[in-house]
């Protein structure tokens, strides 16, 4: 931020980016494929305009400005050898020599028709046996900025364990860069994985994309419950369900999930334990259902809908429900308070009627706690599925443990609801104590209105946050 003056004095070009990542980038890509007796590496180098020009000095050996076939061949052979020197493949710690197979050189036009350079070389390394830890390190063009991506795959019957890189690429082998200006391009120069022949590992690897996305983001213990390979005894299943419930409970304590709303509603509406339990039940049901539905959507329509993109919308929807409840409550309660205030003005003094236990009870008549709005509130609390729960379900489906996965979700949702209900109950009883305090009627009368205001405010905040996410995603 400082010293920009002198920065500007130094001639700094105001240069835009022709190549998506800037025109002095060298972009690299390695796709590792493991077969029974060999590893192939498809290595692609995509040079932007300026490095291409520098490289052309080497390609166009006779300097006549055109690329003769023999120049092209000579360069490609040299490049394949030089690049291999800094492409370090080790199996169980020993370096494996790379032999160049198919090699192509292309010069696709870049900015203003200026050439760019694309090398696509497939290297082959012989494997002693399809086992062990494989590491690939790319030490080429260490100084050059650019997109650096690595992926790893295996042939049928083989699987990769603990892979540090994904199976599918993002750039179509450097043909299309999904550029988000605010995020940095991938800078992956190393890949590590183990080769396994067991079928179980193979199954783990075919978890759908959504599952992998979630597990990477949340690295949730819940996911491990499903993914663990150990055979499942009934006791283990029970333990898993308990853990799932505990995780759900823990999850309910994280921000969101309408704890404030639940509390404010029950306090304001003079809810009873019955109401609180009902609310818990609705939350459990909605959350379970929400996860199921979103899971199905992900599985069947994952090519069209990205589940992560649905979250803000669901968030907005649940926020709007909350806001609606808050607003309608506020209107009803304000009307009630208003009526009562008139009453006051007529009498011009606080009424000491013995038939009223304490001023506020008739501000909101008993029974004003509508089951319908309670249901809506519960729905809004459970509508937003927890991503980890979604991951669990997807994982369970992918692993063929559908029933188990569904059961885990129910347990998770129940745990979540238990905490919400608990909070609700605690507030109900706390309000009982609160109500016995010798409170001035005028103050107590506004508690329901204030709680409606809190509900509205929370709803508004949820909607606003969700909308801002929708706006930017």
């Amino acid at each position, binding site marked *: *931020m*400082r*010293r*920009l*003056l*002198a920065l*500007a*004095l130094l*001639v*700094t*070009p*105001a*240069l*835009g*980016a*022709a190549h998506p990542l*800037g*025109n*002095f980038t060298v972009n690299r890509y390695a796709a590792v494929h493991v077969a029974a007796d060999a590893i192939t590496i498809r290595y692609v180098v995509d040079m932007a*305009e*300026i490095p291409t*020009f*520098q490289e052309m*000095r080497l390609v166009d050996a006779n300097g006549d400005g055109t690329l003769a076939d023999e120049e092209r061949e000579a360069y490609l052979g040299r490049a394949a050898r030089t690049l291999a020197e800094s492409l370090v493949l080790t199996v169980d710690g020993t370096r494996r020599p790379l032999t160049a197979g198919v090699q192509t050189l292309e010069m696709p036009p870049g*900015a*203003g*028709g*200026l050439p760019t350079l694309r090398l696509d070389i497939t290297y082959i390394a012989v494997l002693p046996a399809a086992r062990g830890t494989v590491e690939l390190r790319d*030490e080429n063009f*260490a*100084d050059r*900025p650019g997109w650096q*991506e690595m992926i790893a795959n295996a042939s049928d019957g083989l699987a990769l364990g603990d892979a540090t890189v*994904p199976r*599918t690429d*993002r750039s179509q082998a450097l043909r299309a860069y*999904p550029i*988000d*200006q*605010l*995020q*940095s391009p*991938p*800078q*992956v*120069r*190393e890949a590590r994985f183990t080769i396994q022949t067991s079928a179980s590992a193979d199954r783990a690897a075919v978890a759908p*994309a959504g599952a*992998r*996305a979630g597990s*990477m*983001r949340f690295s949730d213990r819940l996911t491990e419950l499903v993914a663990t390979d150990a055979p499942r005894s009934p006791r283990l299943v029970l333990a898993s369900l308990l853990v799932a419930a505990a995780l759900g409970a823990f999850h309910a304590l994280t921000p969101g999930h309408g704890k404030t709303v639940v509390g404010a509603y029950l306090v304001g509406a003079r809810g009873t334990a019955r109401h609180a339990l009902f609310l818990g039940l609705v939350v459990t049901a909605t959350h379970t259902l929400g996860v199921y539905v979103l899971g199905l959507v992900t599985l069947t329509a*994952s090519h069209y809908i*990205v589940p*992560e993109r649905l979250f803000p919308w669901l968030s907005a929807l649940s926020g709007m429900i909350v806001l609606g409840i808050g607003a309608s409550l506020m209107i009803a309660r304000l009307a009630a308070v208003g009526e009562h205030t008139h009453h006051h003005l007529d009498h011009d003094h606080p009424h000491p009627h013995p038939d009223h236990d304490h001023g506020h009870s008739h501000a909101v008549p008993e029974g004003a706690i509508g089951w319908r709005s309670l249901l809506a509130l519960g729905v809004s609390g459970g509508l937003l599925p927890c991503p980890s729960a979604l991951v669990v379900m997807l994982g369970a489906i992918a692993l063929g443990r559908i029933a188990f996965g569904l059961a885990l979700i129910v347990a998770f949702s129940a745990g979540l609801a238990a905490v919400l209900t608990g909070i609700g109950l605690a507030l109900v009883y706390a309000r009982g104590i609160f109500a016995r305090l010798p409170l001035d009627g005028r103050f107590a009368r506004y508690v329901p209105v204030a709680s409606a205001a809190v509900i509205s405010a929370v709803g508004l905040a949820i909607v606003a*946050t969700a909308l*801002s*996410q929708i*706006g*930017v995603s």
Partner: protein
Amino acid sequence: MIPATPTGKPGRALAAMLALAGLLPALAHAAPSAADRAMADAQAVVQRGPTAGALVDLAAAFMRKARETGDPGYYGRAAAALDRAVAIAPGHYGALRARAWVLLGKHEFAAALRAARTARAIEPHDWWNYGNLADACVELGRYDDAVRATTRMMALRPGLPVYTRVAALRALMNDRRGAIEALELALATADPRDPEERAWILTYLGHEHWALGELSRARARYEEALRTFPDYHLALPGLARVHAAEGDTAEALHLYERALALAPMPALAGALGDLYAATGDPQRATATYAFAMYMGRVAEATGTTYGRELALFLADHDRRLPDALRLARQEAGRRGDIYTDDALAWAYYKNGRLADAMRTVHRALRLGTEEALLHYHAGMIAAAAGHDAWAARHLARALALNPHFDLRQAPLARSTLARVVSERLAREEQR
């Protein structure tokens, strides 16, 4: 924007996690810099929940990265972050304030001045705004306004940001010793946890000593900068220039090549080409000049320009002279500082438009800046226009300030001075 595919998510999520853990893969030879860390932190925050504040932080991180690497692509990314911030929170002050900074980076000086003034109107006591204001004014040639803004900034918050601006203004106004003093003061207050910042100050100290012809002091400062922040793209060419002046060609070539590989710019390629030419390698010289021209073509293909830098290169090397003039005039339409006037005057001179060159070079000298290249250009123009005394004075001044000021131009300064003086003597004799 291309919608992210489900498969695209893990990578991004993983990157964010790695960034969170501070594990973002480092360059082979260097740990993540302060700018890298700032960038990764801000990206992680934005990924969790893009707030206007987080996006402004991200823009600031991109700006630091731009300076650290010399890669102007980061200016565009900083601007995109600010656009996003304003979309979330219209009228966000932090975004407005940073906008001026980003516009300066993008060389949109008039717009930067407007943004800085708007921000100042909102927060007249924020020292930040005066820094941007001063920078924009310097680039637009409004030096009195720049001094006023810097004075105000000094009153609001004495410290490194204002010391470096004071140094730049003093250097412009013929007080290089004062500039060095201010930079030393800045160095003493620099944050030891930000090596790039220290290296930046050291590099500019090197530049000031170089301008005074103090080669060994300049070298010491550049070397210190490179020890502080290895491979610093601003310090490498500075040190290369000193080595070339001292006759250590091998080291100079090595450093220029390194700088050009890290942050390719036409001026660098020009200097390297000159060095190849001076050491009797015309083939490499030609290839390197061609590279400089090519960078210009790439810039124009992408709708931008190296402006002044490329204009000077073309004029210096007598290539595509009409283009040199066109680029210099284009630049003069965007900024009004003395260095732009100087480049324009030089381009006029090379295109044989002596009257325009004379008029413009006077503007370039209006602050009395003591810099060899300015005097050299003035001297050559005066010599061509037949103003012997003027020519001799400026050429002599250029060579006195720094006899090595430019590998290619310094010998021309010497021979022209000799010719002007001998012609003058011959005329006196005749009388």
